[in-house]
């Protein structure tokens, strides 16, 4: 029981981290119809910049702000250098070009910081843990991650649904040409959305840095998870991304344990050792295939014009 609660919390925490990455990805895709595989390296860049700024300033919070900002700036540079040439092109061209960006940046990070994983300490204030219930302690840092994720989700939901810029973003998702014809500088809107997405990914990278190994290609697996999230949630929808992110986070942590247990019951201990991990790793992809088989456009597809 206590294990299940820890798993639930960890699942929500992973889900919210995924949401930070998926939110930018789904907005960029929704508004610009642009598949950015390089979104994962922006998360990686955030983590590395966080470590670097921490080394310079000695303060986690300063590093968080500086790294998120720098990741956003790096995103805008990439947009200016590469991505703006790819709007309106085939999805395939976008996949390939951003795949090239992944290769270059993964290798670039390896050249600058080396292939060995780096470590990022937790901020002093949050390094402890507290008593959740008798016999169960939970680290403050993970709670802080959950709070930060929920805060960003709330802020984004407000910005997209209640502000003028958010209205333009929603309008751009449903019909970018029409928005542009109505006199909105759509390129500037694109860049803005892109910058926000890059900042969020960088922010997620710094937040995750104390919990994971900061190493080249750390963004690759998360990128795939983030894509699973936006496809399950329905492309272009913040609400869908949020629901799907938490779902994927929960399935990947709680589901992993439950499936391993279920397999153990069904096949016995020796069978479980062999089959369990495989089924557990496949679980989120099974969920995704199941969702798409029933709802080919995802759970909450954004309304799209012609």
């Amino acid at each position: 029981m206590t294990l299940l609660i820890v798993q639930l919390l960890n699942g929500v925490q992973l889900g919210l981290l995924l949401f930070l990455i998926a939110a930018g990805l789904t907005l960029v895709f929704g508004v610009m119809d642009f598949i950015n595989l390089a979104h994962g390296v922006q998360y990686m860049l955030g983590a590395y910049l966080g470590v670097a700024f921490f080394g310079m300033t000695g303060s986690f919070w300063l590093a968080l702000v500086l790294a998120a900002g720098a990741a956003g700036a790096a995103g805008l540079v990439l947009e200016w250098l590469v991505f703006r040439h790819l709007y309106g092109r085939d999805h395939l061209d976008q996949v390939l070009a951003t795949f090239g960006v992944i290769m270059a940046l993964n290798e670039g990070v390896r050249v600058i910081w080396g292939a060995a994983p780096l470590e990022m300490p937790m901020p002093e204030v949050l390094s402890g843990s507290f008593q959740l219930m008798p016999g169960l302690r939970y680290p403050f840092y993970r709670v802080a991650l959950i709070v930060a994720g929920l805060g960003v989700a709330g802020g984004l939901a407000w910005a997209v649904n209640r502000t003028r810029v958010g209205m333009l973003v929603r309008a751009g998702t449903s019909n970018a040409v029409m928005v542009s014809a109505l006199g909105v500088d759509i390129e500037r809107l694109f860049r803005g959305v892109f910058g926000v997405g890059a900042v969020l990914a960088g922010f997620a990278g710094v937040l995750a840095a104390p919990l994971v190994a900061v190493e080249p290609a750390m963004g690759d697996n998360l990128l795939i998870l983030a894509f699973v999230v936006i496809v399950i949630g329905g492309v272009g929808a913040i609400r869908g991304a949020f629901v799907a992110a938490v779902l994927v986070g929960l399935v990947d942590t709680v589901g992993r344990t439950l499936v391993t247990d279920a397999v153990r019951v069904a096949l016995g201990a020796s069978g479980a050792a062999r089959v369990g991990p495989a089924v557990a790793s496949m679980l989120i992809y099974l969920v995704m295939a199941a969702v798409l088989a029933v709802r080919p456009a995802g759970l909450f597809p954004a309304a799209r014009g012609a």
Partner: protein
Amino acid sequence: MRRLVPVVLFAVLAAVPFLPLGQEANFVLLLVSRVMVFGLAALSLDLLLGVGGMVSFGHAAYLAIGAYAVAVLDANDITDVGVVLAVAMGAAGVFALATGAIALRTRGVNFIMITLAFAQMVFFAFGALSAYGGDDGYSLAARNTVLGWPLLKGRGYYWACLAVLVVAYLLCRMLAASRFGRALRAVKQNPARAAAMGFNPVALQLVAMVVGAMLCSVAGVLLANGAEFVSPAYGTWQRSGDLLIMVILGGAGSLHGAIFGSAFVLLLEEGLGRATEHWRLVFGPLLVLCVIFFRGGLAGIGGRRG
């Protein structure tokens, strides 16, 4: 004139073993066989992508399925290439049929991502096969035999790769020119119109997926025999990305372009890899530049886009 390009290509490939290569002979033959094997895999992807308009981001799964057919049968002392090919193609075909039927319910980015999801499942499933080395992979006891003869050794392997590639190329060529191929291209251009003409778009695309999968599994069988080693790494999503790069750089839809693409990517990798271990730092930006400035691929040089 342009019709001669594939003929010249195969003539050059057939002439390579007769070149006075001296000490480098074994190395060159190995490299060129690798080009041909990946050329075969890329060719099979081009059938889906270039002819059928399906952007599959999970094609490496079929490489892995073919390779694991070799490994599993090898562990059971079955090395006859006929049996191996039958098992590999059968497994790949069934997998493509089952997953394709679900994947083809989706369009656009969701299709890209669901094919990726299925390939990830295969990747994790093979990683869990502890009887065959799990993540570490499995070393073959011996290469496959042809009717009891160890023909897949030394130059025999080279000729086998070339023969399979030529046969596969002619088969794809025939398919693309047939009534089936024309109907498939009609579906690619406009599924609704093709359906109105009495074709079943999903059935046509599904057949193309199954044929492509079976051909690619043959490439997997050859790859495993060349390396005498099989691991889940055959089916990583980055490998699927590599295959896409080969097809696009070669010129999607031209079929022989896929072989050029394979040669271009692998030879460039080899050349850059000799100059610096950080060759990806050069290759990535090069890929981006190719996509942005170089539409139509290698096969499109000197002629209109096919």
